[in-house]
């Protein structure tokens, strides 16, 4: 293996090799980080919301333009919910204050002791006087769902009190009481509602917040067995039988409008739509990263091929001389591939260092996550492979140069 002479010759003529190594380094550094971000986002987008069958779940915001008092309104809400339940294909209906992934809703502070200074956690609040466990299809991992007598309707203009019972998500329970069971424990809802504590009666496996940010906060939610009604519109979450959603949506709209004496404003959205909207920019970023990564691979490949071809052309005579001196075709092939591997290696090492530096910049300036070593290692292997494959064509051409080139005068 003639490593030393090849290295010596490369060092004499540094410009070309440096350009190729630089391309490999830049590509590797950017590619490793880009692929990592793509994978990270994919994991984020794939997180389940907690709703058992998202494709069959949608929600209606119904606003009635009448001028009823609070009792009449409550009666209207109950009637609307019953009408919706009667629509064929509907599996379950619940009134709800907000929907996961909808980017619209409330958070609240949770305290373990009302006297303490700082909150223990900030959780997303889901209020309903129906069973969200049933309608969303949430999985209870501890305790139980609310009992019918625990579900209340409160006029928010006059009444405001903390709920007696609550259901938490597992992530929130683990945060508040690590290692212990949450059932029976008490929590307080910040300073805005003073007084009694609320007791945990159930823990569900998962229910994401309305914004589902990256990180553990997305999984902290609390379900409160109360409906707070006022002037605001009513929101109903509806789970249909599989495959029936679109038809049920049309029927639900018409049934509500038909049975109302006053005009109604109805807005309907599906959970699928919310998910798509919420993660739209993440998906776009993924596409951009993937496209640029592929383009970079192509460009680097073409750079290697181009440079190698140029060197073969420039060193025609030299190759002929080597052949005249006894080099076989295989020796010439090996020389060029080895030369290329050395240059690629320099690029790979430079790229690894650059990739780490780039990642450090991303972590500090753009709040991204740290790059696991595997990505750089995988990228290095990829570029080594590319270096060999890209150099093969020109090296093969070089091997075909006749030894008689040595004696010919150009």
């Amino acid at each position, binding site marked *: 293996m003639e490593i030393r002479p090849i290295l010596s010759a490369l060092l004499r003529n540094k410009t070309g090799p440096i350009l190729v190594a630089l391309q490999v380094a830049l590509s590797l550094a950017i590619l490793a980080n880009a692929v990592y971000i793509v994978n990270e986002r994919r994991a984020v987008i794939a997180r389940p919301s907690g709703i058992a069958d998202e494709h069959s779940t949608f929600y209606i915001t119904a606003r009635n333009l009448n001028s009823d008092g609070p009792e009449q309104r409550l009666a209207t809400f109950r009637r609307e919910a019953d009408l919706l339940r009667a629509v064929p294909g509907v599996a379950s209906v619940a009134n709800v204050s907000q929907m996961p992934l909808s980017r619209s809703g409330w958070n609240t502070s949770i305290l373990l002791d009302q006297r303490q200074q700082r909150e223990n956690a900030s959780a997303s609040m889901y209020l309903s006087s129906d069973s969200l466990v049933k309608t969303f299809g949430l999985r209870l991992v501890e305790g139980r769902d609310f009992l019918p007598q625990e579900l209340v309707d409160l006029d928010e203009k006059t009444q405001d009190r903390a709920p007696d019972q609550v259901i938490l998500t597992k992530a929130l329970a683990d945060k508040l009481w690590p290692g212990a069971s949450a059932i029976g424990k008490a929590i307080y809802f910040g300073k805005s509602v003073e007084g009694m504590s609320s007791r945990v009666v159930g823990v569900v496996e998962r229910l994401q917040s309305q914004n589902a940010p990256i990180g553990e906060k997305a999984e902290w939610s609390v379900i409160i067995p109360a409906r707070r009604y006022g002037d605001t519109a009513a929101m109903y979450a509806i789970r249909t039988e599989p495959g029936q959603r679109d038809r049920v949506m049309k029927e639900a709209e018409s049934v509500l409008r038909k049975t109302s004496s006053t005009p109604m404003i109805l807005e309907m959205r599906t959970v699928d739509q919310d998910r798509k909207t919420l993660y739209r920019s993440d998906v776009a970023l993924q596409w951009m990263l993937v496209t640029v990564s592929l383009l970079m691979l192509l460009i680097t490949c073409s750079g290697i091929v181009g440079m190698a071809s140029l060197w073969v052309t420039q060193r025609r005579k*030299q190759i002929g001389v080597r052949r005249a001196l006894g080099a076989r075709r295989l020796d010439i092939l090996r020389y060029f591939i080895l030369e290329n591997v050395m240059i690629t290696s320099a690029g790979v090492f430079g790229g690894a260092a650059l990739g780490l530096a780039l990642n450090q910049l991303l972590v500090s300036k753009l709040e991204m996550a740290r790059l696991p070593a595997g990505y750089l290692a995988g990228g290095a292997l990829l570029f080594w492979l590319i270096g060999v494959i890209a150099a093969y064509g020109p090296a093969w051409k070089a091997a075909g140069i006749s030894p008689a080139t040595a004696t010919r005068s150009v």
Partner: protein
Amino acid sequence: MLRMTNLSKVYRTHMIETHALRGFEIDVREGEFVTVTGPSGSGKTSFLNIAGLLEEFTSGDYILDGVNVKGLDDNARSRLRNEKLGFIFQGFNLIPDLNLFDNVDVPLRYRGFNAAERKRRIEDALAKVGLASRMKHYPAELSGGQQQRVAIARALAGSPRLLLADEPTGNLDTQMARGVMELLEEINAAGTTILMVTHDPELAVRTTRNVHIIDGQVSDLVRKGPSLVNPVATAAATA
């Protein structure tokens, strides 16, 4: 050492056929110093290329140091070149990015010698041509005559049986040329067979034997000396 019988070389490009050599006959014995002369276009270069196994020939026979070259594949020919032949070119053809040591090293690497053996041979060869002190220098730092001497060292390092020289003094001034010729004569005196192509008649005079090629064939013009006779007839007589 080298015998060609009824050799012919035809170049075919598109519609044109060029007969570079036809019915070519030559016999070079071990220890000889033979010059090959002829006008341009006579086929000298083709002859040298074929003799040096750089090109294949169309028909005829070529036996080099007892080995019949016909039918050998590229790998075998490369090996033969590497072990038995040494080349010296008009343009020196040193590799500019390598120093003198590495330049002489090139054929030895293909031979498969270990590092110690290679080092020994390189140092010996460079000493023989008087350039051992400049081993780490680069070709660009040397004069033409010195570069040619390095090329000779490269050719000698592998202990070849036959040295093939293509106009070795063509790019040198008279003084350097004389130096190179003296070196070649020394090498020949030490026992290496040398076959040299040149168009300089003065050089042709110095050697023991001269072969003249015209139109791809050996012509019967020979000069004085031990082989002062038609080389074809001589070959037939000794066969």
